[in-house]
């Protein structure tokens, strides 16, 4: 079981200017691999995640998936703020063919939103929304879980709980983690993909590559300061 990106290309055209983020890029993510993706803003991290999820189509190449893939965790867009937490849960359950009440129960318990689940999401504080989003993301098990900066949700207690949940996923399936938190990459990932150079660079030695990336970033910042 794996996800295979075969010679994938993606170019954006904005205000008449073309920006190629991937050109003939190939990558295989077997089940069980935990992959960290790092790079500066605009280098294509979220695009890569969306292409793996299937919500963005590449301009060229193919993506083969023979495992179930989540939507990027940490992304709140799918939640309608006009609807209550419960209605949002039911939508997700119907989408994935699950028992709605089972999902409502799980999300209520995980997010600890209790009575607020009956309130429209627009009345929630940002912390409560983060908890709902994360709990929804955890409500369904996938072979491959995509995480887009989604582990900083809520207060310290909830963050610990979120990390524990991700860790469980990491042990049982694959996690593709897009983050600027390099400690998380070192701690959670078996391989790291660095975007932003002439070609994406995949490395097995996570700690060494992350250290080098961190040095490069510091050097670049020093140059800018100078």
């Amino acid at each position: 079981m794996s996800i295979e990106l075969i010679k994938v290309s993606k170019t954006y055209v904005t205000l008449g200017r073309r920006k190629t983020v991937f050109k003939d890029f190939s990558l295989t993510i077997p089940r069980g691999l935990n992959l960290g993706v790092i790079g500066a803003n605009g280098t294509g991290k979220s695009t890569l995640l969306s292409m793996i999820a299937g919500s963005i189509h590449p301009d060229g190449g193919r993506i083969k998936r023979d495992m179930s893939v989540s939507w990027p965790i940490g992304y709140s867009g799918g939640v309608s703020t006009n609807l209550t937490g419960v209605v949002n849960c039911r939508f997700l359950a119907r989408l994935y063919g699950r028992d709605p009440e089972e999902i409502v129960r799980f999300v209520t318990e995980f997010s600890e939103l209790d009575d607020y689940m009956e309130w429209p999401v627009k009345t929630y504080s940002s912390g409560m929304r983060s908890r709902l989003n994360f709990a929804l993301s955890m409500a369904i098990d996938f072979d491959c879980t995509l995480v887009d900066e989604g582990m900083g949700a809520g207060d310290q207690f909830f963050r610990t709980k979120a990390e524990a949940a991700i860790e469980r996923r990491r042990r049982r399936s694959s996690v593709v983690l897009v983050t600027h938190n390099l400690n998380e990459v070192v701690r959670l990932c078996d391989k790291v993909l660095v975007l932003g150079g002439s070609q994406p660079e995949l490395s097995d030695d996570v700690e060494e590559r992350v250290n080098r990336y961190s040095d490069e970033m510091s050097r670049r910042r020093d140059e800018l300061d100078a």
Partner: protein
Amino acid sequence: MADIELVRDDSARSLADNSTVARLGVSSGPAVPAKAGPFQFQYRVLKALILRDLASRYAHSRMGPLLGILLPVLTFAVLIFAFKLRGKTVPSEFPLGVFIMTGYPLWQAFQSTYSKVIGAANRSDPLLMFPQITQLDIIISTIILDAAINTVVYLALVLGVVILLSTPLPRDPVGVLLAYWSCAWIGAAFGLILASAARLFPLLPNLVNPFMRFGMWVSGVVFMIDRLPTWTWPYLKWNPILHAVEGSRELWTGYESPIFDPGYIISLGFVLTTTGFVLERLTRRYVGP
């Protein structure tokens, strides 16, 4: 030198020990179900989208569904009043209730479906982040929900007109309903073509909108074709909504329309729908969340 301290610690791993997980109340979510067949999968996605859209439309107020009926009723009350004042274009032997019910609602079915499709396709919908939802799913679910709501409202209006204006019942009710739905179908297909083309040329719907406003005046909403000079017929006959309007009048009362051609509506509908689906497929890669 890096100023981020990198520490490989195992705290998260230890948190995931069963005892810790149990203490924090972290349970694993239900497993993803076995893969559904393509039709079951599509049904599931559309059902979820329709129920979500329905909840969103009427989430603001309990009066929402009632207003959905009341507003068209008010519109028709105004129309009837206006036609009673200036009813010269309606032949005296033709019931006013039928004339109105076979005109404006059909144009409205076309126009509202077209607008809804353009609206659904125009917004960069956050729902596209779910891998199984495509923009075509959002468009199709919008069309189904809109057609269902509009049909309920139309039937309520027909009933109201029949009771309040002593209008005769349709001779062929199914035919009248089919004529109504054909307008929604043409609107949906036309909308799909324009929405797909707009992925490459975003200003296209704005260019078409002025023609849409003009369209109502050449669709039989305010006239009957047999009251117009015959030299105008060849110019007006290209309009499928006019065919549907004339057809609806023929099927309701038995009036013989000089132009009604159901074959034209059906063949044009199929051509527009096929073109819409092909264009949608070709331009799909320009869509993103």
